[in-house]
């Protein structure tokens, strides 16, 4: 089975791309033919500083297999935290930035590990903390949504992974099987709220998203802009990672 990845990410309206605190990373960029895909999405909390850096460090570590979000990997997380602390302390900071460093950076996190078989069912495992969501679609309808099931499960102040040494890191886990033709979508909270809000009302947001599957970043930008203008998509950084599964020798493409 093959996994085809498409990634879309936009900063909030009024912010520059350099201010986008969503980050994602994928193992396929480095090892496309391993028969496994490690994909991660993190959303830096905007009320904390150096959160973009922290989000990038988390997703890279997950994609490289250096940290998988499970309790046995706690040591790997502490190493990341030390690296973050060193990186942000390299230069003198004004009083407020120094205090924000002391408070730490926070990011929600969603990681997906997908084993691609020669034939049959692909096994996926996911870990998450916070309000980014994984949606497993079959024939355009959701088989599983993780970690939230409905709009009400998405809090306005989500739990997040902090960069502070020793802080708790209680990630939730889920697993499942996927077939050729299925799609796995990873999305940050603004888009997840939009989708789940519509689903709760009996609408089919997944059809709107599926129409984006074979388009490019311009179409995604138009989709986001139209919904922001209508006022039903919160003005926030927004990222969608789209994995399509197709028959073929195991590999990952993007």
């Amino acid at each position, binding site marked *: 089975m093959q996994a085809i990845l498409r990634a879309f990410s936009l900063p909030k309206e*009024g912010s520059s791309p350099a201010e986008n605190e969503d980050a994602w990373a994928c193992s396929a960029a480095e090892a496309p033919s391993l028969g496994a895909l490690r994909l991660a999405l993190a*959303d830096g*909390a*905007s*009320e*904390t*500083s*150096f959160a*973009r*850096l922290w989000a990038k460090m988390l997703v890279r570590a997950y994609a490289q297999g250096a940290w998988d979000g499970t309790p046995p990997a706690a040591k790997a997380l502490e190493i990341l935290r030390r690296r973050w602390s060193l990186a942000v302390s390299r230069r003198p900071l*004004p*009083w*407020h*930035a*120094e*205090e*924000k460093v*002391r*408070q*730490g950076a*926070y990011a*929600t996190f969603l990681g997906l590990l997908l084993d691609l078989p020669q034939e049959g069912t692909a096994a996926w495992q996911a870990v998450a903390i*916070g309000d980014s969501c994984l949606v497993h679609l079959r024939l355009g309808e959701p088989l599983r949504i993780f970690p939230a099931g409905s709009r009400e499960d998405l*809090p*306005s*102040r*989500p*739990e*997040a992974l*902090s960069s*502070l*040494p*020793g*802080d*708790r890191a209680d990630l939730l886990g889920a697993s499942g099987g996927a077939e050729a033709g299925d799609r796995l979508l990873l999305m940050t*909270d603004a888009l997840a709220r939009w989708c789940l809000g519509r689903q709760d009302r009996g609408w089919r947001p997944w059809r709107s998203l599926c129409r984006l599957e074979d388009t490019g970043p311009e179409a995604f930008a138009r989709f986001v802009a139209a919904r922001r203008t209508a006022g039903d998509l919160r*003005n*926030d950084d927004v990222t969608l990672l789209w994995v399509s599964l197709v028959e073929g020798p195991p590999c990952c493409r993007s």
Partner: protein
Amino acid sequence: MPYSAEISRTQPSCFLFLVDQSGSMADPWGGPGGSAEGSKATQVATILNGLLRNIVLKCSKDEGVRNYFDVGVIGYGDRVGPAFGGALGGRELVPVADLADLPLRIEDRRRKVPDGAGGLVEHTVKFPVWFDPVAHGGTPMCQALLEAGRVLAPWVESHAGSHPPIVFHITDGESTDGDPTRPAQELRGLETLDGQLMLFNIHVSSHPEREIAFPASDPGLPDAYARLLFGISSDLPGEMRERLALEGYERPPGSRGFIFNAEPAALVNFLDIGTRPANLR
């Protein structure tokens, strides 16, 4: 829905502080930790510097301070007018980045903070000081409320889409120029398309009474000054009560923006400028 406007650099909101600097503020403060050497004026300076610090921290990002708010301070005592000192002297409203850059001084203070493992650890924290305690003259509260209206009327005109201003009035309540009810009503009448101006009264009293935060009625309040300040405080709309609940202040409908002898430094967190994690300490 009111009080839901996005707060951003292109659509900032505004905090205005009205600070009682009258002679009666030299009297001892009655709240927790109050003592002979702890005057109400000292407590006012502590509250004001703490709130200003939290506003700056809320706006501080990797590259600097983002101007999500305009901030002003009006003092009243000997005179009524802008109360910033030092390089900010004479300015009525300043962008928050200027506030961050130009405190009077920055002190190192020791503070115990959670260590993440259930204990406390002592840290040295940078504590900027914009205001020192002042206590001189009468208490021209009515004049101060009118002055706040004069400063904020053009602001709401030019920021029609913004979250409306929030006025924090820090006082012992002992007005010497009459009943402040009418000027307070006029001030609360200012509005943007997102809602009416909010007036919060922070009562710093000599009365040794327990802390009271956001009451819904006045019979339990300790004196006439508290009841007067409760009476001129804004009702908390549902949206704001929901945000306050996230800060640990569960309040019923009818609650007002009134605080008695309490530490309100967390108050600025009920305005959202982005994602604030639940586990942020």
